[in-house]
């Protein structure tokens, strides 16, 4: 059997996800032997190519991105979104909270009419995404797990419980009890509750559990003294595509 062809593509991003892959070092090297990697820059020169697995990071922010992601989807058997930008829109989507015209003017000045801009979206808003690796930056153990499973033809396990659960199992001091607010009770696990573990609140970079009780989350944050608007801002920091019911809260 020939090695599966794996490609990486990036859109609007801080490159943190790419760098995080380099942090895999040894485990990456052994996996690389099992697959045929087509780097994204080269990949783009070779438009006729097809891939078994395409990893996509970054969010969709221009009409060119839309065209490109459709093209990638067409040529890929499996498409995996990597990191908050690709999965939930990520921090880039903060841009959506500002008037689009203003952003263009600031960024492009008088040339703004040359640059059609669209609201920042996650990859899944444009094409079908088969699997996702959450986190900002994307979690490397999860990335490895998905890559391995796909190579072996297994279905990867998907987390859908709260960061809070992970925190409890590592016996961290509860952040809520220190007087800070925390999004751990509604944020999707998988990071090992790393922020609470380090004395910080969870800012929800992994997006939310699928059965999130939005009203409950708002109430919880109200108990921490956050106004409704503040609570919504906190909840949507990394998530333009989740909790859309909170759109328009002023």
């Amino acid at each position, binding site marked *: 059997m020939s090695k599966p062809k794996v490609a990486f593509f990036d859109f609007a991003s801080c*490159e943190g996800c790419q760098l995080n892959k380099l942090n895999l070092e040894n485990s990456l090297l052994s996996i690389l032997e099992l697959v045929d990697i087509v780097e994204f*820059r080269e990949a783009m020169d070779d438009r006729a190519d097809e891939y078994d697995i395409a990893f996509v990071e970054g969010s969709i922010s221009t009409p060119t991105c839309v065209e490109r992601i459709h093209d990638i989807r067409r040529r890929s058997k499996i498409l995996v979104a990597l990191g908050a930008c690709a999965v939930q829109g990520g921090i880039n989507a903060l841009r959506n909270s500002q008037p689009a015209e203003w952003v263009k003017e600031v960024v492009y000045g008088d040339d703004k009419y040359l640059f059609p801009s669209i609201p920042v979206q996650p990859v899944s808003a444009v094409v079908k995404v088969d699997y996702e690796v959450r986190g900002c930056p994307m979690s490397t153990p999860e990335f490895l797990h998905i890559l391995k499973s796909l190579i072996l033809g297994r279905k990867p396990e998907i987390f859908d419980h709260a960061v809070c659960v992970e925190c409890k199992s590592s016996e961290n001091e509860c952040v809520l009890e220190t007087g800070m607010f925390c999004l751990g009770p509604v944020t999707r696990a998988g990071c090992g509750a790393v922020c609470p573990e380090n004395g910080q609140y969870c800012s929800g970079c992994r997006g939310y559990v699928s059965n999130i009780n939005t009203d409950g989350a708002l109430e919880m944050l109200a108990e921490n003294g956050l106004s409704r608007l503040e609570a919504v801002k906190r909840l949507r920091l990394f998530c333009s595509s989740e909790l859309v019911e909170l759109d328009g809260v002023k």
Partner: protein
Amino acid sequence: MQRIKIDPVTRLEGHGKIDIFVDDEGNVANCYFLVPELRGFEKFAQGRPVEEMPRITTRICGVCPEAHHMAAAKACDEVYDVQIPSTAKKLRELLYSIFFTADHTVHFYALGGPDFVVGPDAPKEMRNLIGVVKTVGLEAGKKVIKLRALAQEMIQTLGGKKIHQVTSLPGGVSKGLKEEERKKFAEYGKYFIEFGLFTLQIFEDIVLKNSTYVDLILSDTYTHKTYYMGMVDDNNKVNFYEGKVRVVDPEGYEFCKYSPGEYTEHISEHIEPWNYLKYPFLKKIGWKGFVDGKDSGIYRATPLSRLNASDGMNTPLAQEAYEKFYDTLTGDRSGSIPVHHTLATHWARVIELMYSAERMNELLNDEEITSDNIRVIPEKTPSEGIGIVEAPRGTLTHHYITDENGIVRQANLIVGTTNNHAAISMSIKKAAQGLIKKGVEITDGLLNKVEMAFRAYDPCFGCATHTLPGQMPIELNIRNLKGEIINSRKRNI
């Protein structure tokens, strides 16, 4: 002159772009350097709690999140007017020194260094980390990988995450260092020193002993006399984490020295109509266009600038290297005469690498570092704060103004590379003028020599990642005065 078209870019998506205009004779008339950059970040900060800034601004750049994390946290300390405990300060500086060593390592071995170690005319497949390893041996490659891995491990412990750290917050840090961690890291620290010395030696053996390279460094093509900026302590020694920002003139005399809070008195930002980049300049001198010299407000903020703006280094091995640097390049080991050769920035970077490795060791052997007095809870009403650190690519300033609830009303960031936009444009122009002439064929080696002029600045627009282990994505267009492209080269786009 034609207005230059800018490619559609978003935050850090895209590539560096150089436009060179040639006249009818085929000589360079003008030259523009464009980088994708989104100034919108300052606007997004508005209306958000300032306390969040150390965790949001990291996402500006996955290559140097530590720098934004620190500058933002320092600005927040100011906003709340808190004096952070000494241990908290040391823990932040420790994280920062480790980051500096690792970042300079990556630049030297994978990005800028290859021009020298492998050679500017080497085929492009060789001008990368792989080429460096082939030249200096496999051992060097392993050493680089080991240094990076150890640094990442320590950054994770100290910052919570390898990328996008979370532990610095207004009033201090959220997590202390345990004694067993300190012990382990102190062992790693010895390796960092060894690595610094090893890198200085490589520079000496491969670059300084090769007269062709030394001539290249000293050549006029890569020389500009400008002002230099860098943060210094009370004794005018280089400091990356805190101090005053000192600026020296092209002759090496102190021009000004200011505390973070005074930056608006000294720095202004010029906007060119053809570009959306900001060009900071010295306010008291003024913007005189893209020219160097004492009458032009253009300054540089790079590793070379930091050495020029200081009177030396605070640690012994780095100080020794500092003296040798000036002795070799100006004949005055005190460092009071500035070095104007842009390519000497690579050497300066290695000296800084040595310093940060030594500084990290000092901090790891400081008794106070494991104390649990790491945070003061801010109690005062928040208002305004400015935080400055030296980022690997230049002085980084974060400025926030908040309402009485700590909600950001206004934010301004002057990012490391931004300081150098004007100087980078000048350096490219000069290199292009020296190299591109009527009848000269635009070869890959020539393109690389133009590129070298700005690679010394280590411009950070995410290029660093695209280049591991390849090359900076760059587009170079040669245009006639009507703006029509007459020759174009693209790489890795």
